[in-house]
C-alpha cells in the first residue's frame, strides 16, 4: 500500500537524479542509435534493402534472358556466371530481393497489427474473452510455423496473398503473447483507472493509455518478427512455394542452383549472403532497441 508508494517515490527520485546526471535523455531510437550494434545492424539491413530496391534498375540483363550455357563460370562479362538455365546470376540476384522483402514486410505488418490488437484486448479484458483469445493463440503456437504454411500452400497453391496470410497469421499469436505480457501491468496502472471513471470508450483507452506505453517491447518484437518472416518466406520459396515459380527470387535461386554448389557456387551464395546479412541486420537493430528500451524503462520514474 503506502509502502510501495513511498518506496517507488523514493526510488524514482533517486533513479531520476542519477539518470539525469548520468545519461542525457532521448527517445528510444536515439538511445538505440548510440549503440554500435544498432548502427551495424542498420548498415547491414540498409545495404540489402537498397540492393532489393534499386537492383532491378541497375541489372545488366533481363532476369529471364538466357545469356550463357547453364552453370557457366564467371567471366565473359558475367560477374557471377550463369545459373541452371544459363541466366545471369547477378541480374537474377538484383531482381530477386523485391518479392521476398515485400512479402515479409506485409506479413509482418499483418502479424504485428493483429497481434497487438489481440494482445491489448486480452490484457484489458481480463475475463473469459482473455482466456478464449489466449488459448486459441496457444493452439496456433502448438504447430511449427513452417508446417502450417506448407499445409496452406499445398492446399491452395503458392499465391502471394496466401504467403502473406499464412506467415502473418502464424506470427500473430507470438506477437499477441508478448504484447499482452507488456500490457497487463500497464492496464493495472491508475491512469487507466482514471479513464475508467470517465467511462472513456474502451478502444480509446487502449489506443491512448495502453498502446503508447508498450511501444518499447512492440518495436523490439516487430524487428524480431521481421527477421523470422524473411527466413520463412525464403524457406517457402526454397521448398518450391514462390508466388511466381519462374520469377527471380532469392529463396528460389538457392533451391535452383544448390545442386551445382561445387561447380558454380555464386547462384546459391549470393542470395544466401543477402538473406543472412538482412536477418543479422534486423536482429542487431532489434537487440539494440531492446537494450535501449530496458535502459529507458529503468531510468523512467514510473516503474
Amino acid at each position, binding site marked *: *500500500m503506502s509502502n*510501495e508508494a*513511498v518506496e517507488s517515490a523514493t526510488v524514482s527520485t533517486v533513479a531520476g537524479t542519477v539518470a539525469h*546526471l548520468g545519461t542525457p535523455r532521448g527517445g528510444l531510437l536515439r538511445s538505440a542509435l548510440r549503440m554500435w550494434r544498432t548502427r551495424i545492424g542498420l548498415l547491414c539491413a540498409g545495404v540489402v534493402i537498397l540492393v532489393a530496391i534499386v537492383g532491378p534498375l541497375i541489372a545488366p540483363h533481363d532476369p529471364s534472358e538466357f545469356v550463357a550455357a547453364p552453370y557457366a563460370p564467371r567471366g565473359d562479362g558475367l560477374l557471377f556466371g550463369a545459373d541452371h538455365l544459363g541466366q545471369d546470376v547477378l541480374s537474377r540476384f538484383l531482381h530477386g530481393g523485391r518479392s521476398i522483402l515485400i512479402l515479409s514486410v506485409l506479413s509482418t505488418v499483418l502479424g504485428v497489427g493483429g497481434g497487438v490488437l489481440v494482445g491489448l484486448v486480452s490484457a484489458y479484458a481480463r475475463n473469459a474473452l482473455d482466456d478464449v483469445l489466449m488459448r486459441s493463440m496457444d493452439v496456433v503456437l502448438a504447430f511449427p510455423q513452417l508446417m502450417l504454411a506448407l499445409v496452406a500452400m499445398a492446399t491452395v497453391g503458392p499465391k502471394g496473398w496466401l504467403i502473406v496470410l499464412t506467415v502473418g497469421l502464424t506470427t500473430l499469436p507470438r506477437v499477441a503473447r508478448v504484447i499482452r505480457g507488456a500490457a497487463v501491468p500497464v492496464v493495472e496502472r491508475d*491512469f487507466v483507472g482514471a479513464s475508467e471513471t470517465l467511462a472513456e470508450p474502451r478502444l480509446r483507452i487502449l489506443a491512448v493509455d495502453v498502446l503508447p506505453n508498450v511501444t518499447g517491447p512492440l518495436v523490439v518484437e516487430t524487428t524480431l518478427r521481421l527477421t523470422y518472416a524473411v527466413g520463412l518466406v525464403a524457406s517457402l520459396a526454397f521448398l518450391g512455394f514462390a508466388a511466381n515459380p519462374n520469377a527471380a527470387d532469392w529463396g528460389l535461386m538457392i533451391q535452383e542452383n544448390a545442386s551445382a554448389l561445387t561447380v558454380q557456387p555464386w547462384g546459391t551464395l549470393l542470395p544466401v549472403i543477402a538473406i543472412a546479412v538482412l536477418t543479422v541486420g534486423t536482429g542487431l537493430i532489434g537487440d539494440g532497441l531492446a537494450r535501449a528500451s530496458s535502459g529507458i524503462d529503468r531510468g523512467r*520514474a514510473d516503474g
Partner: protein
Amino acid sequence: MSAEELDDVAAPAASGSAAPSGAGADVAAAVSVRDLRVEVAGTRLDIVDGVSFDIPPGEVLGLVGESGSGKTTVGLCLLGHVRRGATIAGGSVIVGSRDILQLDALSLRRLRGRTVSYVPQDPAASLNPALRIGAQLLEVLTVHGVGDDRPARTERVREAMREVALPDDDAFLRRYPHQLSGGQQQRVGLAMAFVCRPRVIVLDEPTTGLDVTTQAHVLQTVRELTQIHGAAALYVSHDLAVVASLADRVAVMYAGRLVEQGPAAALFEDAGHPYTRRLLAAVPDLRQPRALEGIPGRAPSPGHRPSGCSFAPRCLLAIDECTAAVPDEVVLGPVHSARCIRTDVVRRSARVASMPASGTPLVDAAPVLAASGLRIRYGPVEVVHDIDLQLAPRECLAVVGESGSGKTTLARTIAGLHSTRDGELTLDGTPLAPSSRGRSREERRRVQYVFQNPYGSLNPRLTVGDSVRRPLRLLSVDDAEARRRVSAILERVSLDGSYARRYPDQLSGGERQRVAIARALVCEPEVLICDEVTSALDVSVQAAVVDLLAELQRDLGLSMLFVTHNLPLVRAIAHRVAVMQQGRIVETGPVAKVVDEPQAEYTRRLLEDTPQIEAATD
C-alpha cells in the same frame, strides 16, 4: 586483517548488560562519523557533504530528511557501502578504533551483519523467499562464526526470536517469509540485525509500510533492543513523528548536509534552523486542528545546489549573507547545533498556528452522496460489510483505517471502478449504477477521483495539458474553451501555463499530484474522492497538497471523501471522520469528538499507537 584485529572491531559492546550511561558516553561513541562526503562517481558533485555525528552505545539517533536529502546514503556509508554511481570521496566512519571507509572488501564483508548491521525498508524484499526464516537467521551466525556449534547457534536464534517477541518454536522457524505478516517479517529483519550483537545498527525506514499498531510494536522492540544490548542505532526516516517517539537525538538533513542536530526534545521544541521549523509546521497535529504549511519550491538535486546555505532560496528569513558561504555549525545548547547564521532570529520567530481553511458544511441539507447497506465483494468474498455513510454538501468526510480495512475498496466502489456490490449508493437521492460505464455523463462528471500514487495515475505518454483535458470530453466543450479551462484549473492548483506542455516525468511528486487534482476538478465536480493522496509524498509536499485541497474544498464548495491511514492528517482537513476496521465502520462522528473522546476500542488503540511529535517534548 588478522583474527585479532577483527575481534577488536567485532567485539560486542556489552554482552547483555545495559550501556554505560551518562559519563563517558561522548568519549566512547560506538560510531563516529566525520566530514563524510559522497559524490556522483566521476564528478565533483556532492550527494552528501560534511556530515559529522556520533552515536553513543545504547542511543538512537534519528536521521530525518525528505526524499533526495541523502539520508539513506549516509546510512549505507555506515556499512561502508554506496549505491552504484556514487563514491565515498572523503571523511571517516569510525567504529571501535577502525575507519570503516579504509577497510578492504573481505574485512567489510566480515564487518557487515556482525559489527554493523542493517534493517532495510522493505522486509519482504530483504528476506530470501526460498529459505525458511530459521535457516536465514542461522546463516548469519554461521557466516560470521558466532557460536561454537549448531545447537549453540540454534539456541542463539531462538533467543533472537524471543527478543523481537516472535515465537521461537521449530514450527515457526520452519516458516517461509511469505507465511508471515508484514510486521512479523520486519521483526525477523530486526532479529537478523541483532542476532550477532552488533555495535551499530542502521535502520532504514523499517516501519514505512506498516500499520500504526504494528509500527508502534516494532518501534518499542527497537528501543528495547538497543538499550539492552548497548547498540548504537541510526534510525533513518522521513517521518518526524516516528523519530520523535523513538530517538534520543535527532539530526536533520537537507540537500546532503546536516542542517541541525540535537537532543530530540530540544530540537523539536526550540529548533534553530528554519528548515527544521518549516518541517515541523508541515507535520499534522493530532491534538489540535492546524493549517499545514508546505515549503514552497523543491530541494535542489546534486549539481544544482546553490552556493552558501542550500536552504536559502526557500527560506523566508534568508538575507544576502546566507548565500555567501556554507554556514558553520552554531552551538545552541548541549550537543545541539544548527548550520544557520540567523539562529537567533529563527528561534525568536513564534510558531504560528492558523486554523485550517476548510469551510462550513451544510449538515442540515440532504446528503449529496449516501450509501446504505453497502456490501462489496471480490469474487465470492465479501470484503466490505454493511456500510452506511452520508456525505453532506460542502463537507469533508475522512475515512480512516489500516491497510486491509476496505477503505480504498469503498472509495473505488463509489467512483464506479469496482462494481461487484449490493446495497444502495445514491447521488442526490438518485441511485448510482455499480460501474462507471452504467452511469450517466452528468453523474460521472459530478463524482471525481484522485488516486493514491501520482507516479502511477498520470499517463507518462501524455502531456499534462492532454491529461487534464480528458475529462472535458464529458462536457463536449469546444477546443478553445477546453484550453481556457485547462489553463484556468492548472492555475488554480498553482501550476503556471507552461506546465501544460510538460510530461509527467519532468514533474516532482507534488506537482504530479497537483496535476491529478486539476484533472479531477477540471469539469467542476461536486464530490471529490481522495484516496490516500498524500501517502506517496514528502511531509512538506503533503502539507502543501492538503492545504490546497482544503482551500479548494472551501472555495469551490466541494463535498470531499478523504480516504487515509493518517489520523493527524484528518484533524487538519476533515469535518467528520469514519473509522473503518475489517470492512466495517466502527465509529463515526465529528473529528474533534472522535479524536478526543473515542468510543470504539479500535479507535482508541489507533490513537494510542499514532506517533506524535509531542512524545519527544513531553
